[in-house]
């Protein structure tokens, strides 16, 4: 008995970041957000407000908050960072950035720095893959993860100069999406250029969009709708429908 007890306690600590007393099939959701200097001012404020609203909605949605685990990746200030809810994780941190949706507290983001979009996407893919491994080891199942990339610019290198290094992830992303390892949404906002749009199209051929202004709230609601569809076991056509509704049904004040 004593042996048993000790073993169980070890198990519990080891997977401490996966909520105990909840064996729901998980839905990992990664927000991969541009926080480079071009987002400063109203855009980053809008984003912060939208994250707060969304967190509240997630808490209130008993079905999503039961199963969704949220992680945030930002690219801008300090290069590429991961956030465990409102806590920015130090580089090389062993902690998982995923937080159960009902406990998700949004980060307070500042806009500064360069647009390491490629590196951010690679990090997002890596944390998704690590999370899956961790879940499988715990005998927990997962829905297809969702990654949502949001940017208003072009990928740059560490000195802020535009770079073509994003081309290296295109084949990786294509293969991963083909293998249904995750669903990627690539969203351009604000003053993103046609060149920037091309990058997003290459990343996510079906699920890319250029939105007027900074409708982060609607964007996050779309992510929730997509998560609900995933829980329902919907077919690809449903996701396309949700996405096209999101792209076309813009409030009047934005047009």
């Amino acid at each position: 008995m004593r042996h048993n007890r000790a073993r169980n306690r070890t198990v519990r600590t080891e997977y401490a970041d996966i909520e105990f007393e909840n064996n729901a099939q998980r839905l990992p959701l990664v927000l991969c957000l541009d926080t480079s200097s071009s987002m400063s001012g109203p855009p980053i404020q809008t984003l912060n407000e939208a994250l707060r609203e969304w967190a509240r909605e997630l808490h209130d949605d008993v079905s999503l908050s039961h199963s969704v685990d949220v992680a945030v990746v930002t690219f801008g200030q300090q290069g590429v960072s991961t956030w465990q809810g409102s806590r920015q994780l130090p580089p090389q941190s062993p902690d998982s950035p995923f937080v159960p949706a009902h406990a998700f507290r949004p980060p307070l983001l500042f806009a500064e720095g360069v647009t390491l979009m490629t590196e951010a996407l690679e990090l997002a893919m890596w944390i998704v893959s690590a999370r899956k491994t961790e879940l499988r080891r715990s005998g927990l199942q997962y829905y297809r993860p969702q990654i949502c990339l949001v940017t208003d610019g072009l990928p740059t290198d560490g000195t802020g100069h535009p770079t073509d290094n994003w081309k290296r992830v295109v084949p990786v992303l294509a293969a991963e999406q083909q293998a249904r390892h995750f669903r990627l949404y690539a969203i351009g906002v604000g003053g993103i250029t046609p060149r920037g749009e091309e990058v997003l199209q290459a990343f996510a051929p079906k699920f890319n969009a250029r939105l007027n202004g900074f409708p982060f709230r609607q964007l996050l609601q779309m992510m929730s709708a997509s998560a609900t569809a995933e829980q329902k076991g919907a077919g690809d056509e449903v996701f396309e429908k949700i996405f096209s509704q999101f792209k076309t049904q813009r409030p009047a004040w934005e047009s």
Partner: protein
Amino acid sequence: MSGRVVFIGGERVVLAENPLKSGGQAAVFEVEGQPGSVVKIYHEPPGPEQERRLCRMLTMAPLGGRPVDFTQQPELAWPTAPARDPGGEFVGYAMRKFGEPEHVQLVALFSRAQRLRMFPDRADWKFLLGVSWNLAFMTARMHDEDLVIGDFSSNNVVVDRNGFITFLDCDSIAFTDPVSGEAFPCEMHTADYSAPERQAGGPATRASDDFALAVLIYQILTAGNHPFGGVLHDSDSQATVKDNIAASCSYVVRPERVVIPRGVIDPSVLPPALLALAHRAFGLGVTNPPARPSAREWLVALTQERPSVRTCTARPLHSYGSHLDACPWCARLAATGVDTFGATPLPDGTPVPEQEWGLRAVLIAAAVIVLILVVVVLTYA
């Protein structure tokens, strides 16, 4: 700012600007000035077949015009009127609102955090047993009236503070119009509750409802553990409930086939008669629909169990089946440090408060009377 204008049974109403909930197929809106009702609007024109279905449903009063008892909510969120746009086009329907905080999706019972948040101090195992009974009772009577629930899941059943349940998405049920003979199939399903034959594209049947019911009852009685949880050994592709159902792989029956979910509650918390039904449903019954226990079988087994539930002498929120000699929840608390059914464990030796019996006793008595009536009706039907 207000939302769109629709006509509900001829009456002009204004919908809220933003939906309460929006999915792939439809969105649900509150009605300005009518807090008790909501309107479901399809994203795309629903077409004449859906309209005929709705009109036919409006003439039906399923489950015999229940409830009989004023404390109980209706068990079905049945459509109350069609919704038309100003041009007269059929766009959706109105129904009663079953919203939070009074009505909570069943899935809220499936994790400790949400049980504590939504049902503080009442969602013990005895409560869960009662919810299972209500679910089996509702399903049995739907089946007796030749209605198939079809899209049966923890998301479209809500439960109230007394453990009464209401099924929400009635517009998707499968039935045959007794007058015209037209069959209205169920087009919707939820992967985690879909029997293999439904995953393969087959129609919704009583047997597919029986599969979903078995999964739901098992989940409720184990505080949220899906019987098709776990990750197959030596597989690195998918790891979903849906795949395990398709592969007929339940750890309840064949634990050796999967990495069992960590922190799983042992299936033996189910009393033997219920566990035997679970074994049939998740073993032979997965691929052999007629072998699945019917809703009535579940109802009989649950009815037998309810009077003999025990309450832990140390912690009043710990209740368990009479087949167990000791409280399984105290054992779990000792092993994991987590109290499945309570916020704060009481120190040993704390006096145990009296159980609150008034309402429970009335409810159980009412339920037993109704059950007897149903059994009588069924016997003579």
